[in-house]
């Protein structure tokens, strides 16, 4: 077990999160600082995810490191029945860092237990995806100038959306006010509502995506409402347009409001929002590069500001 591994966002203290964000900012200013000279990083994608893999591999390349790995488990020995443990142990002989994505939940945690090489979780099923949360936090910090005392509205699929769950947990250090906007079928699960109560975090639950809610938000975090999440297809048809953001809905919103979305979107943000300066989702994805550069350096125990 390497202590620099990053499996889940709730394994980080407030100081560690702020350190990572500061490093991300450094990389935004110095994206090509080659401090991984001679380092080899494995990207093991047991489940394909082009978006996340390209972002991590770009991060390693811009830092001057080398990448080995695979992008699809069907081309590897795990498809021949090799255990995850054996794959991790084999790869550990070759590399300084393992970045892995897996369709099984808990796979990254288990990987950290069978190797001394640091492991970064790039998503394990519906469980954790900490680099997404770091880029969300960085995007919020960058657009608001602070993480403290913000009103954050989460919209859409709050039941299955792991990005909103992780963001909610990470924000506990920063005294947020949350609005959860969703239909009954996709509302925020009990355990996260309880989490807010226990942490003394203010929150409201709404089924209406109303002007009041929009006008008082600093951040609106949109998520995809997917048809396959509904047991009743009629229910989906009924709600699918209720949680779509249109440009006209932003007329009286706050000046500092920014719209975030983990991407890819389907129709929950209308195309006419894209040109509004409050639309931030494309820049948000670019911030993923800096956040991942910061995560990689931390995992390797390197402080770029000091080199």
């Amino acid at each position, binding site marked *: 077990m390497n202590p620099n591994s990053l499996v889940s966002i709730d394994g980080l203290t407030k100081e560690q999160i702020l350190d990572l964000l500061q490093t991300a900012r450094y990389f935004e200013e110095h994206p090509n600082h080659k401090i991984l000279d001679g380092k080899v990083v494995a990207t093991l994608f047991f489940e394909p995810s082009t978006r996340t893999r390209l972002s991590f591999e770009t991060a390693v390349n811009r830092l001057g490191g080398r990448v080995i790995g695979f992008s699809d488990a069907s081309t590897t020995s795990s498809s021949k029945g090799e*255990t*995850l*443990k054996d794959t991790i142990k084999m790869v550990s002989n070759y590399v300084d860092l393992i970045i892995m994505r*897996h*369709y*099984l*939940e*808990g*796979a990254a*945690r*288990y990987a950290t237990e069978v190797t001394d090489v640091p492991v970064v979780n790039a998503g*394990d*099923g*519906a*469980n*954790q995806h900490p680099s997404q949360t770091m880029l969300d936090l960085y995007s919020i910090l960058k657009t608001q100038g602070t993480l403290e005392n913000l009103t954050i509205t989460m919209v859409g699929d709050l039941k299955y959306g792991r990005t909103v769950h992780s963001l909610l947990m990470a924000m506990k250090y920063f005294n947020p006010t949350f609005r959860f906007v969703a239909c009954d079928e996709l509302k925020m699960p009990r*355990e996260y509502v309880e989490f807010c109560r*226990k942490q003394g975090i203010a929150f409201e639950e709404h089924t209406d995506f109303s002007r009041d809610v929009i006008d008082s938000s600093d951040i609106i975090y949109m998520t995809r409402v997917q048809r396959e999440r509904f047991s009743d297809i009629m229910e989906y048809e009924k709600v699918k347009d209720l949680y779509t953001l249109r440009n006209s809905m932003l007329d009286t919103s706050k000046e500092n409001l920014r719209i975030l979305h983990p991407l890819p979107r389907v129709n929950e943000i209308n195309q006419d929002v894209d040109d509004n300066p409050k639309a931030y989702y494309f820049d948000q994805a670019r911030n993923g590069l800096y956040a991942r550069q910061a995560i990689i350096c931390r995992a390797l125990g390197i402080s770029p500001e000091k080199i």
Partner: protein
Amino acid sequence: MATDKRELAVAALQCGTVIDHIPSEALFKCVKILGIETMPHKLTIGNNLESKRLGTKGIIKVADTFFPEATLNRIALIAPSAVVNIIRDYEVVEKRRVELPKVIKGIVKCDNPKCITNNEPMATVFEVVDGAENLIRCHYCNHTVANGKANIL
């Protein structure tokens, strides 16, 4: 002490362990967790006995056997009311409740089919959820389950 033959069909233990006040529905799971099926010692298992506290209860008596505390505490998951009596020379020399450990290794199967523990040859690990004594959480996939509903391996 007068012995009522209609009630006490089992001889008193000279030496060994008596686990009393086990909820009836948890008795055979406790037998499994303690691994006493294959023990060579004299063994008595009673179930559906009258109990003021539980309605009906189960009891396990094992002669000449003293379990490690950690082993006994494993049954606290499904039988939190259980009381352990250590017997020497027909006397109860120690009596205590079982205590649920903070970390439970290798007894509970995770309900989540997509959990790594159901797909790799490895032991499960569950942790008691902070502030919710009757809930345990999978250390790997974070799924939670109520203690009483835990699926015993």
